[in-house]
């Protein structure tokens, strides 16, 4: 299978004020193939989330390369990066990050608004996706009126809105009870079967075991992949 994403000698340093700087990621090399289901594991502070943000084009490394679909992000402007992110990547967060005042449908629609899809087309797609995650009866409810499991399913539908190749999930079951967590994982398996590349950060081994490959990270370095 072809690579969808390559990280080469990736280094990320955070300045922490007068205390100097802190290397979060040190020389990370990682190749992710199209259609893979990867779990990134490691203790807290290991750099999992930072790595995920790099993969998700939310941040730039201090040195090294991020190549996504033949685009080296070093060559892209912030605007081009935003356009690529909108097309390639869907995010699922631990704390859902939905707009509380908007309905489930409008939350799911949002990425298509920024991608300037026609109104009718995006409404149809959002309805279809909400059906897919089993929320056809909750479309017009505000996200603030929903349970955690429902919120995360709305977030997954939103991540799929622009039909990205990669779904990035940051502790997607971290705030859910085990039944809801299972439901969410089932959805990820379904998406994986449909050909999506899924990259999930977790420290829960039972979740990680469901992935095809586990990448262990500690102190900013990959210790097994």
């Amino acid at each position, binding site marked *: 299978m072809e690579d969808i994403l390559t990280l080469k000698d990736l280094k990320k340093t955070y300045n922490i004020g007068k205390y100097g700087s802190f290397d979060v990621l040190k020389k990370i090399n990682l190749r992710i193939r199209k259609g893979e289901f990867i779990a990134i594991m490691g203790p807290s502070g290991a750099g999992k989330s930072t790595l995920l*943000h790099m993969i*998700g084009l*939310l*941040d730039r490394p201090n040195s090294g390369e991020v190549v996504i679909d033949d685009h080296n992000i070093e060559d892209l402007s*912030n*605007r081009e990066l*935003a*356009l690529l*992110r*909108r*097309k390639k990547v*869907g*995010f699922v*967060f631990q704390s859902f*990050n939905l*707009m509380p*005042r*908007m309905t489930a449908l409008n939350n799911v629609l*949002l*990425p298509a*608004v*920024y*991608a*300037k899809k*026609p*109104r009718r087309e995006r409404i149809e797609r959002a309805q279809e996706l909400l059906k897919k995650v089993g929320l056809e009866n909750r479309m017009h409810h505000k996200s603030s009126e929903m349970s955690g499991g429902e919120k995360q399913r709305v977030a997954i539908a*939103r*991540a799929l*809105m*622009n039909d990205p190749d990669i779904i990035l999930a940051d502790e997607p079951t971290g705030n859910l009870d085990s039944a809801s967590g299972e439901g969410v994982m089932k959805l990820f398996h379904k998406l994986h079967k449909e050909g999506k590349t899924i990259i999930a950060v977790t420290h829960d081994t039972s979740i990680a075991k469901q992935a095809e490959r586990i990448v262990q990270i500690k102190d900013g370095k990959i210790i097994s992949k």
Partner: protein
Amino acid sequence: MLFWENIKFAFGALFANKIRTLLTMLGIIIGVSAVTILIGIGDGLRGEFSQQVESLGSNVLVVTPGKLDEKNFNPSASFGVSTLTIDDLNAIQEKVPSIEKSAPLTLLSGTIIFNGKAVVNLLPISTTQNYFSILENELAAGKYFTEETLQNKERVVVMGGKAAEQVFRGGEDDTRTEEELARDAIEKKIELIGEEFTVIGVMKKKEDALNFGGSDTNQVVLVPRDTATEITGETVVYRIINRVKSAEDVDATKQEVRETIIEQHHGIEDFTVLTQDDVLSVFNSFFNLLSQAIIGIAAISLIVGGIGIMNIMLVSVTERTREIGLRKAIGASGGNIMFQFLVEASAISVVGGSVGVGLSLLSGPLITKFFDIPTKITWEAIIIAFGISVLTGILFGIMPASKAARKSPIEALRYE
């Protein structure tokens, strides 16, 4: 498409914080309505004054003491001691053939007393018989005084229509018409400057009477000049009004009158000859000054409103840091975020500006009704006030919006 979505987002965010939004808008609402109303009052006064001045007639020349500079209106110039005399008037009549008639005006001090009761706000003036034809008054009853009246120093007065109302109207149950009241006034005795005078004539009320600081020409009580001089010993003249034979000669005649009086005053120009246009331009320059002051106040009040918007938008950007991060994560560019917050800031000023304009349209007529101040809310005033307010919203929205646009998505998502 994104434009309409942004407007929806903006109003959604503004509705979510109703009281905060309303308070922020208040600055703009007050600013815009104050500006529109102030400009309206200025325009109203200017309109009314122009009408009054035009009622003077285009072939009337007024000589007034003190040197008025047409470019710099100085109200105190007309409060100086008058150096005009009856000799100046005689010189005008002798040496300027294009002058048809001239009349001196001298304000008399003291109130008018009728039946032991003082009546205030009237304009007792001593003048000659020429007054009536120069200002083209009409009689409601009785007669004007004549040259003989002056020569005989008769103790008589001719009253303006409104003056007669004020002195002789008994009260609200007095239902006499203007003419009946005028007829009844003839031969009545009133007391003025310590002497008793008989009313011999009452003039009809004029629509656009010239205002003299609270009293207008309908409120005059005219005393024959020679009679007044005999009683008070006062020979000074406060104004000389002149009728020019042909309106076309007004400017040339004005020059001749000016030269004649300079000669009379041994080369000193301590007076001003005004035509209707001069009076208009002097007052226009005064109103322009007023307009500039209003624009200054407008700028200040709208800047204050704009700072309010900027302040609340900065708070909003900080509060919604997570939302900004999320929007960026799902594909919003910095430009999208900037635009969203700019629309929000502009929405406050557009809605605030509209409410302000609405308020001024409602209150304009009320001010006219309850305070008797003419207001004329013009479209220009509305467009200026509204335009400036919208511009303010955009200008003061730029800083918070660009702050939002520059937020790093990571930092924003981490923000709790």
